[in-house]
């Protein structure tokens, strides 16, 4: 399938290696295989990873920032395929995912982003919840399609494992590194305002690990209170009007410090 799987890595150690093995395995056992599996990081880290994983993996050597948003923007700019999908190194696809995406692309080629239903699991592999299933319900106007109205009501749609059209991602302007936490939400808002279509496929396509020590999600959970989370959502809503990053240097200042 004409798709590049992008695995962003910002550090490498035994723990990362352990999870990465499972992640890559989940790509290789797809019923329909992607054309390219890639890892994006700086050269130093990539060289370390190559010693353990070299077979059929493309390495994107990022000379810039290893911040998540920058990694993704860089990797997507290097893609030669029509579609890309981001795989967290500690996550896995289910084996049916790309087969189903391919089927939906055949019947709905106008869609720019295909999202899976994601199972969120804890470090013991136990289910915590499902996400994106809301888009299949009466919550949205056209069932299966995430539109502006549903994004305004609900900010937690997950793009993990989603399949994006490369050209559309770049046209929309990619991710903004000035936004913490809600950068994907901001991207989705920007995408729908440019009339891009986002569809949720009713298949469990991705398993996302929540609660791993050192993960971005855990970091946000531990360091951000509700006020800060609401702040970033507000920033995302504001910035979504602009294609280009405005380099505003947003920073949350707790109320008592103001």
């Amino acid at each position, binding site marked *: 399938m004409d798709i590049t799987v992008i695995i962003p890595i910002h550090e490498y150690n035994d723990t990362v290696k352990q999870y990465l093995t499972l992640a890559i395995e989940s790509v290789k056992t797809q019923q329909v295989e992607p054309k390219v599996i890639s890892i994006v990081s700086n050269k130093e880290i990539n060289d370390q990873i190559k010693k353990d994983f070299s077979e059929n993996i493309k390495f994107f050597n990022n000379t810039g920032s290893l911040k998540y948003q920058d990694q993704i923007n860089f990797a997507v700019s290097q893609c030669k395929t029509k579609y890309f999908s981001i795989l967290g190194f500690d996550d896995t696809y289910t084996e049916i995912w790309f087969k189903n995406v391919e089927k939906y692309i055949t019947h709905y080629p106008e869609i720019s982003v295909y999202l899976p239903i994601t199972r969120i699991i804890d470090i013991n592999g136990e289910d915590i919840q499902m996400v994106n299933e809301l888009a299949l319900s009466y919550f949205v106007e056209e*069932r299966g399609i995430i539109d502006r109205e549903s994004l305004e009501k609900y900010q937690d749609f997950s793009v993990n494992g989603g399949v994006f059209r490369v050209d559309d991602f770049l046209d929309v302007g990619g991710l903004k590194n000035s936004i913490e936490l809600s950068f994907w939400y901001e991207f989705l808002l920007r995408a729908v305002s440019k009339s891009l279509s986002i569809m949720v*496929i009713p298949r469990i396509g991705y398993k996302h690990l929540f609660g791993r020590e050192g993960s971005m999600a855990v970091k946000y959970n531990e360091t951000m209170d509700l006020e800060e989370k609401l702040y970033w959502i507000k920033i995302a809503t504001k910035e979504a009007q602009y294609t280009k990053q405005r380099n505003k240097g947003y920073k949350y200042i707790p109320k008592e410090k103001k």
Partner: protein
Amino acid sequence: MEDKKKEKIDRLDESIKKLKKKDFKIYFFIIDTKGAPNGSTQYIYTMAKTLHDLGYNVELLHQDEDFIGVGDWMGEEYASLPHSFIKAENIKVNVRDFFFIPEIFANVMSQTKILPCKRIAISQNLNFISEFIGFGDDWGTYGINKAITTTNEQAKDIKELFPFTEVDVLNPSIPDYFRKTEKPKKLEVVVLTKDQSLFAKIIKQFYWKYPLLKWVVFPDVRGLPKESVAEVLRETEITVWVDDDTYFGYNPIEAIKSGSILIGKVPNVIPEWMYDESGENLNSRGIWFTDLRDVQKIIAQAIFWVMEDRVPEKLTEEMEEMKNLYTHEEYKQNLEKLMGKYIDERINELEDIKDKIK
């Protein structure tokens, strides 16, 4: 005396000639369902329309001054068949005509006893035969000795009740617009049941028992025209069906032909198509259950099967078999053959009458 004999024989000859040229009427007595979809009515209209398409003169008779008809749910091509409002005792027919009377109209069977045409009962639900017939009466009392029914099982049952009745089986046809599509389906569940409170109960209890699946949509197809129902079934992954009293089961067949996974409660009389080749066990064309308390669990299971792409192959393979069953093409051929048989038999009867006159 001889002149009168000759006149009768000439009239019979005339009728026989017209029978051979399809120059006669076929009447169907119908009830107005007031726009509510109904399998039995669908069967009769399908028969009338198919005969009409085969070149026969059909007419549907009713006794309802405020007749609404089937336009809304079966479509204009059925609603526009010739209809007449008439009281049974005022029907004017010819010896070469045919008159089909549904089993619920025992009163019409009685009132039309003296008519010269050939009268044939249409029986689709055995319960209706005994419900409307008077104590001490039977079809023989009304001069009915021929019947059409929808399944072999029903034919056997009718013969047990009325051994003197010749029963022909004409399996119903399912309209061609109940068909699959290659397009991906929506993960939604349609519930098909005549019982309105059961409809609500199945859905509400599902949401209570499975809050994790409270996002699942149950589209409501009640009151929709058949073609619209077909569209919904074509788009929907799962259909639940409950009808204890059916003898044939139009709805589940329509769902299966539309590619929707069927979760069906086994009715009191099990339709033939639900059995496997042995004729003793249920097949895997649907997921069958007997206890209503299990239905929500089965719905949840089916939803996860779909989400995880692990719907059993046996189920999908056997569903595919339904594609070639109860097609309109097969039905048309069977009906044409049956009508041909009735015409031939009628010609023979009239020839016999002629011989007796001579």
